[in-house]
């Protein structure tokens, strides 16, 4: 633990990591609250609790790197640099949204930032990440691609196919399994036969299992994996054990969880709390620094909701645009 390379991050980087994780958390908490008012339409899947994954991985990436995300995509978007105002507006279905209100929560994307989209299809992202990796390899950009996927997605055939393709094509792609213990109401302990690391190895990809609530552990493991993959070592695999704080989607009663399960998680292994303790105990940051970030993030989210709410909906004519280049 004490040997974490991430603990040697610059003050600036630590603050960035905290800011991103806090932004994700705040974003999700706020969307949760706003959803309850009935203002937000559609299916919304919140990422709160899983922040260390998106941030711990994406901190190693730049715009020349790509990620493919999941239905639970807000965290990945923020960590990959998507505009928070654009995201919030999108979730509200506004014309000013990142996808002009046509995508919504499940399809937020910013290809210019290498964020290839949240994805409504479980397992849909892994082949796309392979493609982004292929493009990087062929065009010799030095870029890598990351495929995020859940424990449920890890069973989909597309995941297996992508892992094999990555191996035989020697693609610079990193598979990140965000194992939050459930796919909808079904426990991963039941649905995932065998062992995720062995599976990856069966496809020729070395893997490591990491505590997904420990930003430093994730950052270290992701750094190593991405470095190895970026330098031509072939695909890598990370198995992150973590937890989601909310239901599968907003509206889920979560009868499948133990009473107090989430309260316990929040109290005991919360990613942000642990980060905070760690950096303050090690005197890398002051409480003050963190509180400052908290305030700024709160203001940012508040502003994003306020502007999203008052933003214009798309117009009738927008229905017929963006199908093809010609219309």
């Amino acid at each position, binding site marked *: 633990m004490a040997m974490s390379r991430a603990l040697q991050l610059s003050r600036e980087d630590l603050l960035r990591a905290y800011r991103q994780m806090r932004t994700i958390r705040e974003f999700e908490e706020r969307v949760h609250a706003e959803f309850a008012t009935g203002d937000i339409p559609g*299916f919304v899947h919140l990422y709160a609790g899983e922040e260390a994954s998106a941030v711990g991985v994406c901190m190693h990436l730049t715009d020349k790197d790509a990620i493919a995300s999941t239905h639970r995509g807000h965290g990945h978007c923020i960590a990959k640099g998507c505009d928070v105002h654009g995201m919030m507006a999108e979730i509200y279905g506004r014309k000013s949204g990142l996808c002009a209100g046509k995508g919504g929560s499940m*399809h937020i994307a910013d290809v210019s930032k290498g964020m290839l989209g949240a994805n409504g*299809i479980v397992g849909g992202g892994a082949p796309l990440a392979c493609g982004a990796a292929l493009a990087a390899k062929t065009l010799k950009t030095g870029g890598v691609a990351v495929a995020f996927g859940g424990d449920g997605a890890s069973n989909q055939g597309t995941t297996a196919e992508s892992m094999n393709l990555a191996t035989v094509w020697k693609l610079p792609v990193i598979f990140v399994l965000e194992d939050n213990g459930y796919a909808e*109401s079904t*426990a991963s302990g039941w649905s995932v036969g065998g062992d995720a690391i062995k599976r990856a190895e069966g496809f020729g990809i070395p893997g490591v299992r990491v505590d997904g609530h420990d930003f430093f552990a994730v950052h270290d493991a992701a750094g190593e994996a991405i470095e190895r993959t970026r330098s031509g070592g072939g695909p890598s695999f990370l198995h992150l054990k973590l937890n989601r704080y909310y239901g599968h989607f907003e509206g889920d009663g979560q009868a499948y969880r133990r009473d107090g399960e989430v309260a316990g998680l929040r109290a005991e292994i919360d990613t942000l709390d642990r980060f905070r303790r760690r950096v303050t105990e090690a005197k890398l940051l002051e409480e003050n620094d963190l509180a400052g970030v908290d305030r700024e993030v709160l203001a940012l989210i508040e502003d994003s909701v306020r502007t999203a709410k008052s933003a214009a909906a798309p117009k009738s004519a927008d*229905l*017929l645009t963006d199908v093809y280049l010609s219309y």
Partner: protein
Amino acid sequence: MSKKSFRQAINEALAQEMERDPRVVIMGEDIAGGLGAPGEDDAWGGVLGVTKGLVGKFGRERVLDTPITESGFIGAAAGAALRGLRPVAELMFVDFMGVCFDQIFNQAAKFRYMFGGKATTPLVIRTMFGAGFRAASQHSQCLYPIFTHIPGLKVVIPSSPYEAKGLLIQSIRDDDPVIFFEHKVMYDVEEEVPDEPYAIPFGEARFVREGDDVTIVAFGRMVSMASQAAEALAKEGVSCSVIDPRTASPLDLPTILESVRETGRLVLVDEASPRCNLATDISAQVAEQAFDALKAPIRMVSPPHTPVPFAPALEDEFVPNAEKIAAAVRSTMRAPSKQAAE
């Protein structure tokens, strides 16, 4: 007889057929839910609660939660159907057919023909479809024209709770592979539904309403839209027949033709994307077989050729509704009829 929701009607049909025939098993993602989890069993009963309670009645041997591997378990349902079970598999949203279509259209649909008539595949796939839920492009499609295109599949699109129960029971008793489409916006719609089991035969259209001027054909959720339109038009003095074919494959063309021969005007309402959909399919069949009876152009009411948008305003604009149907009907009344032209 009592008021039941579309959801309850389906649940009851499943329960009664499982009761009647021990070979009927149901499977799907979280259709009971809570497997391996510390909380309640039957925690979900399906993503919208449609299969709730069945695991309590029939146990985990007949109510099978699955991993998220649609090719795997829908293919397994097809294989099991070849070997003596009568599986009802749930493809949560029909939009997910792209990850498992092979097992449906190349395997289940073709066994009987490829094997020279020596195989029977009593498989039902229940699936949710349709727009209106603000669920965006990958969770709002209809796609039944794709299944209708495939020989060997039967395609059922119930338009009300009563229809849902009777058609689902028929689907389960039917020995061919059936795709059963449930409109996600309709689950809370209620009507009187008999408590006892009953089966509605396939290929027999239902007259929702009879009228003299225009025939309207509509499927699923669009049937009630068409009825609303007919209601409004009646006040304008335009009298419409509304026909619900119930099954897209087989299609009860004779009933449609008969009605068109009486009215001479046809409006087709289809919530699916407009190219190669059911509206075009029926229009073409009528234009081929009852051309002489037509007094005006056949009109189609479908969404535009775009993915389903997320923003509520756009989605509302996208979906056909009673107003658009009424406008189409009016346009066929205005169109110079052949008689008029003579």
